[in-house]
């Protein structure tokens, strides 16, 4: 007798659980579907805003987001799963490369960066896209979190000429990039990643600009 009740109870609760799962999965699926286009539009706008911070809009005249090279896993850029290099052109001539790159050695894991390198090899700008550096300590790599709003730490990279790229190291390592005492690791990770990206761009510039749009290098 008790076995049938236990079985009945299991069947009943199992049925209820399935019903709840189906209903709430449907709610989530419906919300996802209803918001997808809007979210995608926001993401594109967000990306363009970020790009405008590292590369002034006057520097190029092509449809930047549609003109890219799809890289496979690339050690020089810290990309385990590949990433994109966007190509900015002005009047058809190479103007700058925007590289998605990752600093694998942040204080709390990876720091995803976007680095803009001008065609002459100088650094146009750098932004941290994704990071988990300690709030209030290492997160000054993100200018929105940097307490110095007038000259945020990350702006230093915009002054780097092509000849300065070998010195793209923190001062502690013999370079010219300053950092905040007590939070060297975050700064060093970003600095080294920018240096690697700048060298990668310089070494591969012609191939990157010649590659078919949307295709591999």
């Amino acid at each position: 007798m008790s076995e049938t009740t236990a079985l009945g109870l299991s069947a009943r609760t199992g049925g209820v659980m399935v019903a709840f799962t189906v209903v709430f999965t449907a709610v989530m699926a419906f919300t996802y579907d209803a918001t997808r286009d809007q979210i995608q539009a926001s993401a594109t706008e967000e990306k363009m805003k970020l790009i405008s911070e590292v590369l002034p809009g006057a520097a190029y005249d092509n449809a930047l987001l549609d003109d890219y090279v799809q890289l496979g896993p690339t050690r020089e850029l810290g990309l385990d799963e590949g990433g994109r290099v966007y190509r900015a052109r002005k009047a058809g001539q190479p103007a700058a490369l925007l590289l998605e790159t990752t600093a694998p050695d942040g204080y709390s894991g990876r720091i995803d960066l976007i680095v803009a390198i001008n065609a002459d090899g100088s650094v146009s700008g750098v932004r941290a896209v994704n990071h988990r550096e300690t709030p209030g300590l290492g997160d000054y790599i993100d200018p929105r979190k940097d307490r110095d709003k007038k000259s945020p730490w990350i702006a230093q990279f915009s002054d780097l000429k092509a000849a300065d790229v070998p010195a793209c190291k923190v001062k502690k390592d013999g370079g010219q990039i300053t950092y905040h005492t007590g939070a060297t690791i975050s700064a060093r990770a970003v600095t080294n990643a920018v240096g690697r990206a700048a060298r990668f761009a310089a070494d591969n510039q012609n191939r990157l600009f010649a590659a078919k749009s949307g295709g591999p290098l």
Partner: protein
Amino acid sequence: MDFQAHKEIAWNGIWKQNTGVVQILGLCPILAISTNVVNAVSLGLATILVMALANLAISALRNFIPYEIRIPVFILIIAALVTVVDLAFNAYLHELYLVLGIFIPLIVTNCIVLARVEAFAAKNEPAHSTTDGIAMGVGLTLVLAVLGAMREIVGSGTLFSGIEMIFPGTEGLTLFGDNYPGFLVAILPPGAFIALGFLIAGRNWIEARKQARARANPPASGAPQASVEPSAPAEAA
């Protein structure tokens, strides 16, 4: 009277059963987020929204949820609600989402949501449950705000830094000049424990004084002061 019941629930959530300093629940976000006021209050506001929705939904559905599997169903509902809030914020309030976005998924891990659902919403009617969710969220937000302010002032020497992300044109305050060296411990998780300890001690001190005063001046019979002694929490019913 119903208004009285709502008031009782609100007071319960904000002071008597405050999640941060009395129940000591939901420490994960408290430790992680309370490094400055703006982050702390942002997470608090998102939590209020989710707690009110979760309490409302589960209270409304409570008669359909078998007792044996209530916890998985609660978690399912909370996770679904958080996902919906996350997507809706991302789509329709994108500016705010850029600030709150990283905190919203964290709310699922906040045991206070599940705790209120289990202790209150599963046993009470929807209107009271919603009030309870909001009040508990407000209580948590207050603790987060004070904790965030303490840690931000001591740790970084600033207040309201990052507020320009929520109200463009405003600016955070720098309290001790640009050369304040910062006090690292306050920013790191141990600082959160220490500051929270001070808050708990402060609340206990106020309560102890209140009770000592109530003992020293025993209320005249029938005087309204009799309610100073905490009555049984509503959820014990």
